């Protein structure tokens, strides 16, 4: 049972993520001020407040996990803006197209969803590892999930590994030069600053640990 993720848990995940982004708005904007245009926090907050609002509305029902991810995607696409909005949107939109059945996903399915999402995000953004973008957080995290899955680890262990890899990936962006996005305009002057998108992506894996490894109380 605990090896499956319910719609209720996914809902809790995104609500936690929204809370975290709203709390970190200033930090994200400050990071973007250094190497971008000082709006990443504002953009993400605008979008995730909308997400949060929809998820807290008791009326909102989702047919299945795919529908849930599609709904998140559309909200992000229409409300975040900037580069991050369509990228996160594409991530969830493609995740939704991965094979799954019904109102819960198991670890292999969930891992595949993240992989689909990452592939979609990279098709859209053409960014590779070490380009100093959110890909530097998401790709190691997805690879860590895949490795955990291959070696038969539990969901909780897989999520913890993903979070750990995401953090290292995020921190590594400090050391590298940006090749994609607005920070790339700075060339070598982008070195020494943590990428804002890599940072907001880290919170996705950080909140996943809490939200997806434990059951939702009265579900």
């Amino acid at each position, binding site marked *: 049972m605990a090896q499956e993720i319910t719609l209720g848990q996914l809902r809790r995940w995104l609500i936690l993520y929204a809370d975290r982004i709203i709390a970190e708005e200033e930090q994200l904007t400050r990071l973007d001020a250094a190497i971008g*245009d000082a*709006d990443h926090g504002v953009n993400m907050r605008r979008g995730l407040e909308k997400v949060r609002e929809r998820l807290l509305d008791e009326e909102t029902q989702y047919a299945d996990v795919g529908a849930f991810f599609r709904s998140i995607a559309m909200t992000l696409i229409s409300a975040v*803006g*900037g580069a991050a909005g369509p990228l996160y949107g594409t991530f969830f939109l493609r995740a939704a197209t991965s094979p799954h059945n019904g109102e819960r996903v198991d670890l292999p399915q969930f891992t595949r969803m993240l992989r689909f999402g990452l592939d979609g995000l990279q098709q859209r953004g053409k960014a590779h590892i070490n380009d100093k973008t959110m890909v530097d957080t998401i790709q190691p995290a997805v690879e860590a999930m895949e490795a955990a899955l291959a070696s038969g680890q539990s969901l909780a262990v897989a999520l913890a590994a993903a979070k750990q890899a995401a953090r290292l990936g995020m921190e590594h962006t400090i050391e590298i030069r940006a090749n994609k996005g*607005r920070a790339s*305009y700075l*060339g070598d002057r982008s070195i020494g600053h943590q990428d804002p998108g890599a940072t907001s992506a880290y919170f996705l894996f950080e909140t996943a640990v809490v939200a997806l490894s434990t059951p939702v109380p009265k579900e």
Partner: protein
Amino acid sequence: MHSFVNKPGDSIARSLAGMAACYPNLLRVHFDPDFVQRAQPGRAGKVVVITGSGSGHEPLPTGYVGLGMLDAACPGPIFTSPTPDQLLAATHAVEQGAGVVYIVKNYAGAVFNSEICTEELSREGIRARKVLVNDDVAIPEISNRRGLGAAPIVIRIAGAAAEAGRPLEEVVAVSVRAAENARSMGFATNIETLPRSIHALPLGDHTVELGVGIHGEPGVEQQVEGAEEIVERLMQPIVDDLPYRSGDRVLLLVSGLGGTPPLELFLFFQHIYEFLESRGIVVQRRLVGNYLTSLGRGGCTVTLLRLDDELLGLWDAPIHTPTLHW
């Protein structure tokens, strides 16, 4: 710059309402999703031209809606590209079966959003094409270059071609040619002083940022001695890049970022004019003013478009928008 439009959403919507109220014969505004369209729809069956842009760059994009230019414009939040649902709604409102051209400044978000929109439209059977504007020579790699002063120019060329009844692929082709023949660069001032102290401010030894973007993206700090030196440092990279050669005919756009007064813009223009003249480059058309801004920032962008007879003819064709009118 002390801002009153910072209350998310609401202030921008009110500003759009104000703009529509100011130009009742030219503009109609739609909310949720936000876009501005022509008050009088374009001639039946024409290709439509649409652009999105973050707010804070006015008159881009809304000030360019009208005959001979845009059929619709989608303003995003401050410095943030509009979202695909805005582009889709605007397209559904104005498209006439001949297809739509999106003029897209080369910023990741704007490109992604137009792609998402185009994918959706292709499912609906609407032909959508994207023309990229990437004229900023401050960025070495061409593929990564930002859209700057060429945006209003490419929009104008596309709009004139569409107005002339040309089919989708021709509108795209001539717009791409305009984009490929345009180069820009900008600078921003860093010292902010109240006008009252202007008389006390010594000239010389000022720091400016060369190669800035229009969203506050930093450039490279330089000590400069005055307008002439700034012009030299802006124009040489622009002219060298295409390159523009002796005998070339050009359109020259000097656009303030918003906070530089006309007095200074014309001073820069004069130096630029002399720079180009001394290299045998012929300025056939010129625009000096606030055509693409960055809120109230001091500084300007300079854009050259190499003209040929077709581009010149399209530029000179009738136009009637809040900003350009002849």
